[in-house]
């Protein structure tokens, strides 16, 4: 039990450090949020002004916005480590690698949640979707999606952090992996917004949760090797 507590403390310390650096520096947070909002705005232009079409596409657009902006966010939390040899320091810590992964994934998930908190109201306003009645289910979907995306994104950020052309490679590796997450999250969001006429909501939420668990285990299990190299 003490190891678990110790690991949780380490994870918390790492997540807290990154959060603090963002809060104090305000380097990436504002621009990432702006980028996400801009993506939603451009989807509106791309799909035309028909309100029905936009409302129908809203769940998909919301999640595409989250995924695109989320890529910037999870990449960012590893990029900061490349400055001033911070990554070497991080790998020198005599702690369980899984706790480092957990900390990075936690701050990534938090960033995704922030993005969700911005994008869901924005979708409601821009695409004229009534989200208020579905808010609890939507919140649950966003939480599950945020955890899954952060689990995958953090792992691949660890893969690409020391790689050439990592800005291209991170999305290239993450996007096909998160395809089932995107699918399940969009389906769950659609079901939540339409009042779930086919009763499929539990299945999609279960799939999301399953994805989260599997990817967290896979990420935690392999992330340590990436730091060793």
């Amino acid at each position, binding site marked *: 039990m003490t190891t678990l507590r110790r690991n949780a403390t380490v994870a918390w310390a790492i997540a807290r450090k990154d959060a603090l650096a963002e809060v104090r520096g305000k380097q990436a947070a504002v621009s990432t949020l702006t980028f996400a909002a801009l993506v939603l705005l451009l989807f509106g232009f791309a799909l035309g002004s028909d309100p029905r079409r936009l409302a129908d596409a809203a769940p998909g657009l919301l999640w595409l916005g989250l995924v695109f902006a989320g890529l910037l966010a999870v990449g960012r939390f590893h990029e900061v480590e*490349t400055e001033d*040899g911070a*990554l*070497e320091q991080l790998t020198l810590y005599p702690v369980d690698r899984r706790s480092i992964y957990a900390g990075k994934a936690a701050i990534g998930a938090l960033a995704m949640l922030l993005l969700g908190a911005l994008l869901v109201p924005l979708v409601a306003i821009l695409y004229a979707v009534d989200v208020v009645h579905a808010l609890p289910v939507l919140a649950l979907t966003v939480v599950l999606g945020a955890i899954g995306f952060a689990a*995958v994104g953090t*792992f*691949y950020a660890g*893969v*690409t952090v*020391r*790689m*050439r*052309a990592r800005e291209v*490679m991170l999305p*290239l*590796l993450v*996007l*096909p*992996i998160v*395809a*089932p997450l995107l*699918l*399940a999250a969009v389906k769950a969001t659609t079901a939540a917004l339409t009042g779930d006429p086919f009763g499929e909501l539990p*299945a*999609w939420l279960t*799939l999301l949760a*399953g*994805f989260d668990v*599997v*990817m967290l285990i*896979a*990420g935690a299990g*392999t*992330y340590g*090797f*990436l730091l*060793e*190299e």
Partner: protein
Amino acid sequence: MKTRILGGIALLAVIAATLYGLFGVPPDANQGDAQRIMYPHVSSAWLAYLSFGVTALGGIGWLIRRDLRFDAVAVASAEIGVLFTALAIWGGMMWARPVWGVFWQWEDPRLTTTALLLALYVGYLLQRRLSDDPIRRATRSAAVGLVAAVDLPIVHFSVIWWRGLHQTPTFLAPDKILHPAAPLQFVLALVGMLTAFTLAWTWLMIRRYQLARAELAQEEAIRGELIRSASRSVVGAPEAGGAQPGAPVEATR
């Protein structure tokens, strides 16, 4: 020499299975000649999944044993897997156009899964090219290959829930094969093509593995040369002591 014989046998087997599939077997009652695409299509798809299974196992082998031969198996398998995945998708589209009327059917779980499979392993190969250090490349690749392999069943599972119209699996449902609707000739054509393709795959694997080993040896040789020239320059000109023998070729962390 043995590999050459295997290659010859594989080539003959593919030719024989192709001829049998084209001329030996009668056309399908419903789909006509288009159904003949199924023989190489199913065989390619089988090899695609086999390849990526082997890639994942090679990655695990590297992580446990730290022997670069496992990584050579992994890269050989991934490259050949990408080839057969592309073949499977291409064959599927050629079949879908006359039978379904479209090249691409979004509701089909296996087509969608296979497309993502291609994307996953093209990414795998691309990231290999961006790592110059063999050890680092092997570790990264092992991790990437493992997570991709873990993701695949979820991908498959999730797209199945879209409700597909793909034909139910031919092989994982044995009653289908023995069903009178599938006469012995059809089974023979498919099994023959599967065997021929698998032989060809084995030959490709051996050759690509040998190539991977040769590439590695060359990399090592260049590395050794760099180290030697660096130490020579240090001996020759003691003041130029900045060169570090054995430093990774890859850009600084």
